[in-house]
């Protein structure tokens, strides 16, 4: 058993928001023995742009239980979208949108898969563009 400590702060000035924003939250997630831990950096493209390319799979609901997911767009210029299938060829079914430098942290239910795409054909390849860590809980 191990413990993953996570802390998130959100800050903004009173000049920008009317009142200063200073949110700080922490949590300690217990990681049971034998659970999966994944840490990867993957290249993301759009399936219509490359022959035999499929969107890289971030989360496999068929083989993992509920997870804490950290994901970050580490590419310098490409947008990355999270979708639910390997064959997602259009922008119509995305649920998260990570621009360069943006990140997300969320506990994902073990119901749906997560895949990544750069969006519409021609958007370009985000080589080594997506970093993610997953802890099964």
């Amino acid at each position, binding site marked *: 058993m191990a413990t*993953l*400590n996570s802390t998130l*702060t*959100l800050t*903004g000035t009173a000049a920008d928001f009317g009142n200063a924003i200073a949110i700080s939250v922490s949590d300690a997630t217990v990681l049971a023995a034998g659970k999966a831990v994944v840490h990867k950096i993957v290249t993301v493209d759009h399936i219509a742009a490359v022959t035999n390319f499929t969107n890289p799979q971030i989360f496999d609901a068929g083989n993992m239980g509920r997870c804490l997911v950290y994901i970050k767009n580490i590419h310098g210029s490409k947008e990355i979208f999270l979708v639910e299938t390997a064959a997602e060829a259009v922008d119509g079914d995305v649920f998260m949108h990570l621009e360069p430098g943006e990140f997300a942290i969320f506990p994902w239910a073990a119901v749906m898969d997560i895949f990544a795409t750069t969006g519409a054909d021609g958007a370009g390849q985000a080589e080594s563009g997506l970093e993610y860590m997953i802890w099964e809980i």
Partner: protein
Amino acid sequence: MATLTPTLTLTCNDLFSSPTSVSASVSLAVSGAGSGNIQRVACDDNPQAAGAGVLIPLSGVLGIAAAKKTFVYIKHTGLEVDGSTADATDTVLIRNATAGEEGINITLAPNEFAFFPLAAGIHISTAEFGGGLSITKVAANVMVDFAYFAQT
């Protein structure tokens, strides 16, 4: 335009032989107007007059167009709906504002939190999961803290 700065740190000292430490921070250009109001709501509250549990309606919220990408912060308070009694077991489902399993599928246990960039309406097919954001209780009703920041 306003600037929101989220910072995340993740540390684990006892999983591997070497400690894990991750830190991320970014400056986000967001709309100051209509953003940043932290609300504490129960899962069956109707804060946007768009239905029980709907936090971001498909049509947008507080003057923020549905086509805008929105940064979302949400935390399970670990409290029952009276706002004071601890609840250590009941979870909350976070999904898009339409029914079904597709799209966002986050489960918050007590004291867990999430921060993520919810895709703009222009990227979302209403025939699939429609966008927006809603919360649903799994068993007993609980309170969550919620804030949103619309990208400029």
